[in-house]
């Protein structure tokens, strides 16, 4: 058995989660959401182009079609998650005041849940009416 000078326990080393206790989770989720957004963003851009000049009634009837509602819900929710992961890194890099940093990191998580809920409630209302 090789002698190690590490203070880390063998379990901690095997888990490989590091001092923040979540390892590569943030990195991995950012990539995974990015891959999911690729086709969704192309669909979203194409849809908005097609909807230019449409009034509220036409937009609502477009959004009430099942796959439009599903894809819009996915696009906004996955993008919001991806955005919060990205903004977290921006805040961690550029906001040096501990209180502001902590407050903004918490605030963005709360905003994520609020954004998800408002989006789901709005799209479902249009789709199910």
């Amino acid at each position: 058995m090789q002698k190690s000078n590490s203070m880390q326990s063998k379990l901690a080393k095997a888990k490989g989660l590091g001092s923040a206790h979540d390892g590569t989770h943030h990195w991995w989720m950012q990539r995974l959401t990015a891959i999911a957004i690729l086709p969704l963003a192309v669909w979203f851009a194409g849809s908005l182009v097609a909807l230019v000049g449409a009034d509220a009634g036409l937009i609502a009837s477009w959004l009430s079609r099942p796959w439009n509602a599903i894809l819009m819900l996915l696009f906004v929710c996955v993008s919001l998650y991806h955005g919060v992961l990205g903004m977290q890194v921006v805040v961690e890099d550029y906001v040096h005041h501990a209180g502001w940093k902590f407050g903004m990191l918490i605030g963005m998580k709360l905003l994520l849940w609020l954004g998800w809920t408002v989006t789901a409630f709005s799209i479902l209302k249009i789709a199910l009416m």
Partner: protein
Amino acid sequence: MAPDPQAPKTYPRPLSPHLQIYKPQLTSVLSISHRMTGIALFIGLFVLIAWLYGLAFSPAMFSCLQDILTSFLGRMALLGWTFCLFYHLCNGVRHLLWDAGYGFEIPIAYATGWVVVFGSVGLTLFCWYIAYGERGREFWMGM
């Protein structure tokens, strides 16, 4: 704590040059642009959520948002967001390729960088041409 008389005299440690010392390069400009477009898109998402909320629950809020977004400044913002979306999308693919281990050689990093620049400008113009190709003339004439 009292200073240790035995301690060797210390001098300020050398600092790395700050960012503004360096000449801007394509690679570094694209890197910071990725963050800036990401921040713009994050803000845009909340406009989109407000727009969806208005569509579902508040016709007054929806028509107010439509008025703002179809005004001259609103259209400029939408044009900007279109570019941000395509830029972040194209450069994001470049980042994913780096994550997979491809494209680190300097000439390739520059080549893919230019592809991102021309690709995102091209896609933006393409979208706006499709959206406003015929109607656009009326809109700009009416200004």
